[in-house]
């Protein structure tokens, strides 16, 4: 201390503040004489004290540190791809321009594809990009799974610190806390007994993924005590890895108190062609359909059930039809939908699915019967029946909503292998044009197979020549930008120029088409560049 100095000790800061608040007319500041000079003296003292206080500042005590983020072992992005990510994230939603879209690629639309490409290659996201990635995932639910996978464990660590990103914890199994491993029976048991509903659902899904039987046993142990809504969700997670060994449990669930649980159990059992329920349904459905050999051509005769008995109801058949539908056809539909498709050829004279679908059906039952077979083919994921029900893509009936609607066709296509699917849709577009194709294109795998891509470009070219405006096809055009194989860009060269205006064409359409094709071409080139950037130089 400076005891040798003759200076008076500095006035206490609190006393200065009090005097300043009340005013020197009412309170003489410490160390000053009252009167005219008091305010100035107070300010002098306060200035010295302010600087002294600031100069004497020291760091404070540290708060408890967060646990460090788990290590991300994935390799870092190549520099060019990291640059691309910065660009893609800079072009955030809310930028949609109305009307014409010009010739520049829409980066926002390419983000999902870029994310799936980096995820396929297993790269780690640059840490500093995580906030922007989380914000993008928050704004667009469709991006979430891919964005969160790319963002990796550090993003979940981050999400626990910022309420804006809570969704990431909900969207990720286990809410970001590591799920118990296969060896941790005790923790699994504890989490199952005491966890929150969402944690239990994730746990069940995770266990089911690595050991289906263990998951079912976990569920069986607490089944009677679960609430009805929870039982429904838990039962639904058995869909993954469904197998014959689940049958006894599902059979038991057919007697559940809850109607929805019973219906789900029946649906799951009917997807097991060897199950007793499937066999019972096969008998019931088989009794309703027979071949009439007395006509010129063999014809299918349908005799719908006359009642929905207790046994049928127990097997998941819903007795009451929605308004506008007859009871008997409603029951028939459910029986045929749940019966194993593999049983029909034997039942109907050894015919193949194609031959069965081609047979005439008596008394207007064709629509009902084919629709039920469609649902069965989708549920049982049967490609042979799907092909038979789809028919040849060029068939006139395929062009408009007939017995099999576009939505159902899209679902049937989903059961086929990717090349077969692409080939069928290509054939469909070649025969019927683009107006009905949007939904079907949506189920084709990306990038489009060469024949499909060619069919789409040809159809767009035809649409242009027909003289309409390109925005009538903006949906397909947008899909093409995202799905066409980048190597097809060269095929577009001939379409980029503005054609001469024809007399019967819509005014200016040629220019707009050229613009649309230029954007398509540029987007494809950009996609090719984006993929190339992800290749790590050897």
């Amino acid at each position, binding site marked *: 201390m400076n005891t040798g100095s003759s200076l008076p000790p500095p006035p206490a800061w609190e006393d200065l503040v009090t005097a300043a608040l009340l005013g020197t007319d009412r309170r003489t500041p410490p160390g000053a004489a009252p009167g005219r000079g008091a305010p100035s003296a107070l300010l002098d003292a306060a200035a010295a004290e302010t600087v002294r206080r*600031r100069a004497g500042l020291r760091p404070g005590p540290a708060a408890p540190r*967060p646990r460090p*983020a788990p290590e991300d072992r994935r390799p870092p992005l190549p520099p060019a791809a990291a640059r691309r990510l910065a660009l893609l994230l800079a072009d955030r939603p809310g930028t949609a321009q109305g009307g014409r879209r010009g010739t520049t690629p829409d980066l926002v639309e390419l983000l999902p594809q870029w994310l799936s490409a980096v995820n396929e290659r297993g790269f780690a996201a640059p840490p500093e990009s995580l906030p922007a990635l989380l914000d993008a995932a928050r704004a667009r639910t469709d991006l979430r799974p891919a964005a969160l996978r790319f963002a990796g464990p550090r993003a979940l660590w981050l999400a626990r610190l910022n309420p804006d990103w809570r969704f990431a914890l909900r969207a990720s199994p286990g809410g970001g806390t590591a799920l118990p491993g296969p060896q941790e029976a005790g923790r699994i048991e504890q989490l199952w007994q005491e966890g929150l509903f969402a944690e239990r659902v994730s746990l069940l899904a995770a266990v089911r993924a690595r050991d289906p039987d263990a998951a079912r046993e976990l569920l069986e142990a607490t089944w009677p005590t679960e609430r009805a809504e929870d039982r429904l969700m838990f039962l639904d997670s058995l869909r993954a890895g469904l197998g014959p060994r689940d049958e006894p449990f599902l059979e038991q669930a057919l007697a559940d108190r809850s109607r929805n649980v019973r219906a789900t159990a029946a649906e799951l059992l009917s997807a097991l062609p060897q199950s007793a329920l499937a066999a019972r349904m096969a008998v019931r459905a088989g009794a309703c359909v027979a071949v009439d050999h007395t006509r010129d051509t063999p014809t299918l005769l349908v005799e719908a059930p006359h009642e929905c008995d207790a046994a049928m109801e127990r097997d998941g058949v819903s007795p009451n039809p929605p308004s506008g539908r007859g009871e008997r056809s409603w029951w028939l539909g459910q029986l045929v939908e749940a019966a194993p498709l593999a049983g029909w050829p034997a039942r109907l004279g050894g015919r193949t699915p194609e031959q069965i679908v081609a047979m005439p059906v008596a008394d207007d039952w064709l629509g009902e019967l084919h629709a039920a077979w469609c649902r069965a083919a989708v549920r049982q994921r049967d490609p042979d029946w799907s092909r038979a029900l789809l028919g040849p893509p060029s068939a006139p009936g395929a062009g408009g909503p007939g017995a099999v609607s576009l939505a159902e066709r899209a679902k049937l296509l989903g059961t086929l292998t990717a090349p077969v699917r692409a080939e069928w849709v290509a054939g469909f577009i070649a025969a019927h044009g683009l107006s009905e194709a949007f939904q079907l294109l949506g189920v084709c795998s990306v990038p489009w197979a060469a024949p499909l891509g060619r069919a789409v470009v040809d159809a767009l070219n035809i649409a242009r020549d027909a003289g309409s405006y390109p925005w009538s096809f903006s949906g397909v055009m947008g899909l093409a930008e995202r799905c066409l194989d980048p190597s097809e860009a060269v095929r577009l060269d001939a379409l980029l120029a503005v054609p001469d205006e024809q007399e019967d064409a819509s005014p200016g359409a040629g220019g707009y088409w050229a613009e649309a094709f230029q954007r398509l071409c540029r987007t494809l080139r950009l996609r090719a560049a984006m993929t190339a950037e992800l290749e790590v130089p050897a």
Partner: protein
Amino acid sequence: MTQQGVRWSVDQVLALAPDSASRKAGSKLGAAGPWSGTGSSREGAVWGLCKGSGSTPYRTVVDVVGGSGAPGPAYKCSCPSRKFPCKHALGLLLLWSGGEASVPDDGQAPDWAEEWLAGRRRTQDEREAGRAGSPSGPADPEGARRRAERRAERITAGATDLEERLTDLLRAGLATAEQAGYGLWEETAARMVDAQAPGLASRVRELGAVPASGPGWPVRLLEECALLHLLDRGWLHRERLPDALAATVRTRVGLPSSPQGPPVRDDWLVLAQYDRTDPKLTTRRIWLHGAASGRTALLLSYGAAGRAPELTLPVGLVLDAELSAHPGTGGLRASLGEQFAPPAPTGVRPPGGTTAEATARYGEALRDDPWRESVPVTLDDVIPVPDGDSWQLADATGGTALPLTTAARSRPGLWRLVALSGGAPVKVFGECGHRGFTPLTAWPTGPGNAVRLC
């Protein structure tokens, strides 16, 4: 240092954009699509043709290097946009940042670009020649002296006036300031503008905002009143102050200063760049650190409404250039002199210290400039730690931490910093003062580039 391969990052290019709409428009054009005839030269020029809606493409050329007296990139584009730089210039630079595949190196500029580049070089030469020819001083030294005297008199009148208002306030008590409201201070600030003391005017305006700034406002108001009083007194008695302190007072009052120190050539690492925008003016602050001299320097650059300030230096790059210091305020402010090469990538990072060293440095800086709000410091091995509603930077070893400023807590940069750290120590450059620490740039502990936080 070679100039080839010196291309900026996307982040650095996007930092040039005058507003977010330009950022968006520019990033859309950063794809190969609309561009043709692109190229760049050894001297740091980039050019290209961009197809727009019209029949003739826009001609865009950027001089990345700048030159002595005309620092930072300069742009020229035939588009009608009033934005500066326009989206085409941004798109071209983004394309260029993508590498040689999209914009080839070592090209010969086409005539239309060369014309403009040559014109720029001519003006630069003339400017240099002019500087060499008439080294200093305005044409009419006697007139300038008289103008300066008149201005000093007006400031003195303003400062005296302000002193009276402060003593009135203290006589009646700060409690009355809350009722008096903002109008009183606005009027006083206007008088300081009239007195040609913009430094006093902005301090007075800030004073007016204090009573509404939440709990603890009387303490803050007393502090600010006292420092303003100190500045008034400093101005009124400036002839009795040491030279450096007198220069600081002149700068704080709002008189312009010009560089006086001898130019220092160094490899200047660009530590941070950020803008403060108010309706009339955008102020850009750029922090540099000299690798050899160890000095930290501040460059200021201004842009009128709607225009980004012209000087741009990408964070994380290093610049071989001369800097001249301004007198006063601790010698941090400097002006950029000759640049000998365009900004280049570097692995160099500024040396740093602990949180205790940071506050000590702030304390020392107050000795030269008691009005200083903060000092530039680099912290080594600190971890961002949540602290209730707030955040702090804690030393990785030892139990001390600096709180983040309120402004820093609400910026997206905070989350980039937290993400970069992931709970592990990082190196952080920022401003440390009595309100806390404002992080501006961070480096990961392992390899990795500088990450902008502002």
